[in-house]
């Protein structure tokens, strides 16, 4: 499966999307959920926001080819649509650094091998300014050490242990990990009164 490999460290150019509470409807409007495949979603990431705002970073040639997205608070709140991280991934995003994340979104990202690291507000603002000033500068997102490096600066950035271990150990492919439990699944179900029909 596509995510069956380790994601200890990601290095690439940055792209800043400022503002808090950017929801998954904004990342990918619902009309793009009508496709029965995820292919082709990349070009529609932030579709309406891009149309309404010519200055939107996803419109800017300066950020083309970027892979580290830097965002504000509560990024990806709202709908559980995996189409949101799928669209970002297919656009080229490989790691996200932000103030905080909608939980379903962050979980969907990890399954796709995209780490979502949290950093303090002042560091986020500094990163966004710095990327705007020098979009070509490489940023390293170090999942193992829980830090983000740009130039000489090292920023402490965290993510919960569970998903971090999944990324570092290459066990993001949850289906095969869960299948390993084997008959213990049916055994657990068998102990539940409602499964037995009371």
């Amino acid at each position: 499966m596509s995510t069956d490999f380790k994601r200890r460290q990601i290095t690439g150019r940055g792209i800043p999307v400022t503002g808090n509470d950017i929801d998954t409807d904004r990342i990918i409007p619902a009309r793009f959920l009508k496709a029965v495949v995820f292919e082709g979603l990349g070009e529609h990431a932030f579709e309406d926001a891009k149309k309404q705002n010519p200055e939107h970073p996803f419109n800017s040639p300066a950020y083309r080819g970027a892979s580290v997205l830097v965002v504000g608070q509560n990024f990806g709140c709202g709908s559980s649509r995996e189409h949101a991280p799928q669209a970002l991934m297919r656009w080229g995003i490989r790691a996200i650094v932000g103030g905080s994340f909608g939980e379903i979104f962050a979980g969907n990202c990890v399954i796709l091998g995209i780490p979502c690291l949290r950093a303090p507000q002042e560091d986020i603002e500094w990163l966004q300014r710095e990327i705007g000033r020098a979009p070509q500068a490489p940023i390293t997102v170090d999942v193992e050490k829980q830090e983000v490096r740009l130039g000489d600066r090292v920023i402490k950035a965290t993510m919960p242990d569970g998903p971090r271990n999944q990324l570092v150990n290459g066990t993001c492919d949850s289906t095969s990990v869960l299948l390993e439990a084997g008959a213990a699944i049916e055994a657990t179900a068998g102990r539940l009164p409602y499964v037995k029909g009371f």
Partner: protein
Amino acid sequence: MARTLLDKVWEAHTVRTLPSGQTQLLIGLHLIHEVTTPQAFQMLKELKLKVRMPERTFGTLDHIIPTADQTRPYADPEAEEMAQHMYRNMKDFNLQLFDMSTGKQGIVHVIGPELGLTQPGMTIACGDSHTSTHGAVGAIAFGIGTTQVRDVLATQCLAMAKPKLRQVRVEGALAKGVYAKDVILWIINQLGVKGGVGYAYEYAGPVIEWMTMEERLTVCNMSIEGGARCGYVNPDQTTVDYLRGKLYTPSGAAFDRAVTYWKGVATEPGASFDDVASIDGARIEPVVTWGINPEMSVGVTQSIPSPEAQPEAERPTFREALAHMGFQAGQPIKGARIDVAFVGSCTNGRLSDLRIAAEIAKKGKVAKHVRALIVPGSQQVAKAAEAEGLDEVFRQAGFQWRKAGCSMCLGMNDDKLQGREMSASSSNRNFIGRQGSPTGRTLLMSPAMVAAAAITGTVTDVREILR
């Protein structure tokens, strides 16, 4: 030590601790719909995997289906293709589908409780964030992404970290004209859209205890809007009475055994929480959102707040919201002109919601400039409402009476805002573009408030109409 419902349900469904430190959690009920499953079934087919517990998996069609003309093939070829995929996948994997021919089709979060599939003490998953709704009966219910849908189909499990638990107490009693929707909108106003991140919410206190099951469903539905991973109400006699006689609840002696189990999963007196928040129910008035996330709301007698009164980090979002909505700081929300009125959705598409809206609809006619839609949450809700003559009440007043579906909550079918239309909506999200037009505007409120706005053409304090 006294334990919470979350503790008990989590422990009973734990298969094992994963190497990552997360829990492998058994999912007792998997609900699926046409929009977030085709890719999951495709992955399953590619991996040559079966559905692990087909008897614990149920599907319906809700997100994309038209609510006016449901003749197949659907006029929208993409909707038709999604429906065909759903039919094919449900057949290929031998799963139960509640489609239109069954009379049980509807919004997945309306039909789960209605059919008695949703029961206390269960773990429930569905590829939709409003799965938190099912917590109203005392279940732990998670919205998940499509790859996780694949996980549940293939393994009947999820890899999850146990959330922290916040008890949200609503004290006192509600005033007339104030409804469950106002309660949850006010909770989100007070705790914020980020306030619940990392938490499950246990709703408690006298206001919650007095609520009917349909009201509790409305409250739990919007837990995700407050950032919480899930939300629940402890099962009590109201829960038991609601579940008695439902299609999928046990009957006879098995029902009595079920009741013992259901009541046994409730949080025990003296249990401790990671956090407790308290809201004074008596101070809640009808709530209306004015902005672009569900926290941006005011009481109907209040004015839109100023960005300058906010913490600096929040000001840009506030300014963006004012610009999108075309509102000025300091402007009263009451009197704001609307173009569209929508009663429906998994938040407020149940029979009691339609009854309240109909009560208001009897007092006038839809304003000339307003397009008003009533979309029942399920075929069974529609049938019950029609048996009471509510459809006629609505038609007489100038509302459109539609067939069951998600409709204008997210505008994936033909029910969309046009251009910058302003919508008074009983749904759950006021995000930019949410109701189908990239520039459309949404004011969230209770079904009673939507009906009141429909007949006056502006945001109105429903208490003045009820007086």
